[in-house]
């Protein structure tokens, strides 16, 4: 993820340590994938309670853009910054493969460079990506257009409800998604479908700064 951010933005991102109480002033906070604390207990659960997450929460409240990918998405739900939960994949095994994603909402800072209902390629790699929300929450996020990515027909790799692959908060500054767009941003990856997400975010950040 660091490599991807550097590649797209031309700048080295700052890195925060889990015990940091404060974050440096920034325009975009990214919670990358990985296995924080071994994903022991529940994926992302222990990291979501790390001191640095208080600072992330404050930043979210103040409107800073936040992107959580994979384990980052799991942290955001565990921290209550996004609704729902990510449960064990329906097939129970870890799944690493390419899926297709339908862009369900292009009216966001992260997806505005995609076309509505465009279907892109994107890899996934996770053990707990099975998105769940209770009926009422689901109705809300669907109604509010908070669902940003869906697994395209036939490619849902984990049993997620409504094929949900990524969602935003109501304020539309926090995005969490299970797939890894950062692994499909240069020809060497075999495709660049993920790149526009970062370019859009960068654009937004630049226009805010301007």
């Amino acid at each position, binding site marked *: *993820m660091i*490599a*991807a951010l550097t590649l797209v933005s031309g700048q080295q991102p700052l890195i925060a340590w889990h015990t940091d109480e404060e974050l440096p002033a920034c325009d975009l906070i990214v919670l990358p*994938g*990985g*296995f924080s*604390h*071994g*994903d*022991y207990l529940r994926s992302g659960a222990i990291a979501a309670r790390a001191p640095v997450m208080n600072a992330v929460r404050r930043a979210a409240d103040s409107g800073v853009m936040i992107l959580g990918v994979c384990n980052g998405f799991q942290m955001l739900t565990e921290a209550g910054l996004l609704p729902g939960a990510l449960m064990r994949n329906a097939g*129970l*095994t*870890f*799944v*690493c*493969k390419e899926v297709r994603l339908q862009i369900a909402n292009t009216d966001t800072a992260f997806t505005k460079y995609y076309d509505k209902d465009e279907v892109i390629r994107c*890899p996934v*790699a996770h*053990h707990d990506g099975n998105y769940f929300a209770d009926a009422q929450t689901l109705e809300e996020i669907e109604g509010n257009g908070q669902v940003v990515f869906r697994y395209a027909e036939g490619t849902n790799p984990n049993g997620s409800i409504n094929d949900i692959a990524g969602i935003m908060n109501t304020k539309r500054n926090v995005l969490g998604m299970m797939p*890894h767009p*950062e*692994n499909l941003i240069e020809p*060497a*990856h075999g495709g660049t479908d993920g790149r526009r997400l970062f370019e859009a975010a960068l654009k937004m950040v630049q226009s805010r700064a301007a």
Partner: protein
Amino acid sequence: MTVNNTHAITPQLIADHGINDEEYARILELTGREPTFTELGIWSAMWNEHCSYKSSKKWLKTLPTDGPRVVYGPGENAGVVDIGDGDVVVFKMESHNHPSFIEPYQGAATGVGGILRDVFTMGARPIAAMNALRFGAPDHEKTRHLVAGVVAGIGGYGNSFGVPTVGGEVNFHPRYNGNILVNAFAAGIARGDAIYISKAEGVGLPVVYLGAKTGRDGVGGATMASAEFDDSIDEKRPTVQVGDPFTEKCLLEACLELMATGAVIAIQDMGAAGLTCSAVEMGARGDLGIRLNLDDVPAREDSMTAYEMMLSESQERMLMVLRPEKEQEAKTIFVKWGLDFAVVGETTDDLRFRIQHQGQEVADLPIKELGDEAPEYDRPWVEPGTYSQQSPHLFAPPDDYNHALLKLLGSPNLSSRRWVWEQYDTMIQGNTLQLPGGDAGVVRVDGHATKALAFSSDVTPRYVEADPYEGGKQAVAECYRNLIATGSEPLAATDNLNFGNPEKPEIMGQFVAAVRGIGEACSSLGMPIVSGNVSLYNETNGEAILPTPTIGGVGLIDDQEKMARIGSADDRDVLFLIGTEGTHLARSIYQYEILEEESGPAPAVDLLMEKTRGDFVLAAIRSGYASACHDISDGGLAVALAEMCIASGIGATCTIDITYAHAALFGEDQSRYIIAVDDQWADMFAANSEGSGVSFARIGVVGGDRLVINEFVDLSVKDMKDAHEAWFPNFMGAGTVAQAAE
């Protein structure tokens, strides 16, 4: 609390430690008196087959281990090979066969953990992993459970640690019913001037313990066998170790950070026989003594005895000698990464290995002798018999070639391994250029504009069974071929020699002949063996596994733009066969699956021809001729063509010269490739081939959605793909909860 650590040294106790009379006599002589209980444990740990290589050493010495690019060959935690620009690749393969049979998830997981530690102990950051797996017959009652657990365990550890798994092998054969093989490979990259080894230097320096706490995990089988050893522990202790990939990840980061400060003089991971082996090695290599105080060892459980601490195989632990002036800096790093650490001893000038525990000296042994004077056996062996060549007409042709090809594609040993590799994170770190499914996994060298490394793991045990010498050669040759097929220059290899009981002359004969074959092939093909592992006694009820000398090879790609892939052929590309018509059906998958037989000789490898063709194919790929490439291995030409079609999703129409159709299509003759060449270059390519003296044939054209081979084969790519992809998921499908226990 004092714990009983004194036991009378009886003949039974000695035997339980796997020490024979002759060895014990030598131990008495070297100790200068009767060993204490702890000392007996230490001797047995150092002198067992696993640590001392006593049956294999004589033969391993014959392997070529040197080359212009070799920085460190066997002897260190992993081999080190120069890849230019000041970088080195560090790699090794190791078995975790027995633990994985007992507890597949944890056994395989800790196997991955162990091999990763070997790599980062040397200062390299792991960038790729592979796993070579052999299971019993698919219909054996244990097989599915073992497959599910092993694959989940490998993924569970590697994924969490964050290393991409880019290749491997999976075979099924009844001879592995009681003895599966789990061979794990890892490779890392480091700067050539920042490699760390286990040799300690300097007297009076702190010996520092780092990592997880020590528990009773894996304390020698001998203790298990004699329950009367310790009456304070009622429960039978599990010998199974549990892996903790998160701690390992922290250990990796802490070690690399620590190394960067210049604090590390020597470092050694605690693998087999944990503290004993690592401490002895550091001392013996550096001509130093080591004194340890076990009261300082971070312990996970109460009242562990000295014996248990010295033999514990708890995972995720390291031992190092640090510069005293950097101790504080080191501590800061350990604390940051949340790791247990302690100064547990010091280096001395007396060449003794002395262990203190609870105010007593529980061991005082000559360290050099522990490390270097392990027995070395020249075990009796018999030259394996050979089979005479068998002409194709001795093998029945299939009733229906289409049916036969589909059957092979969907057979247990040839079908797609997607079910396996999709459980592994193949893309983490963002540098994977070729995923599993092709001939070799490819990972680019981070920070370098064009460079990449290719990895392949190979051996065909049924060939080694038929002819250990040819089989040994073939394992190396196939690995070489797989590396070449991606456009990489084969650099070096690691081996994992899995055999039965070496005390049987026939088994020892297999070993000797296989090593001879491997050695010759490595010399001829320019792939020195830089690290490896031997796993013997793989037998159940007197029946040995198929001899399985796994070869893990690493190749270098200078320019990742000039790679070839199995599935990158395009419409209208011309297909060339490099090599000659297939003739060899003995020991083929065709014979196994269609004729339901396993007999006759293994295909022979002509090493000179192998090298000539390899050089030619590599040059063709590097000069940009080849739009796709695949070697011809299991299943022969027809299977290789089918695999290319399945991978690209495009068909091909082939017309080949045929003497015996079944041999031409399914024969497993060696040193062959298929190359796809853009049609505008095809004539020039043919002319070049002609000029280089390499046998080749123009066999067809890419296009359409069917594979057609003369009048014999006409199948849709979809049907072939379905057959290829279906077997594994169907096999694992019903009722395999990978691990309710996970």
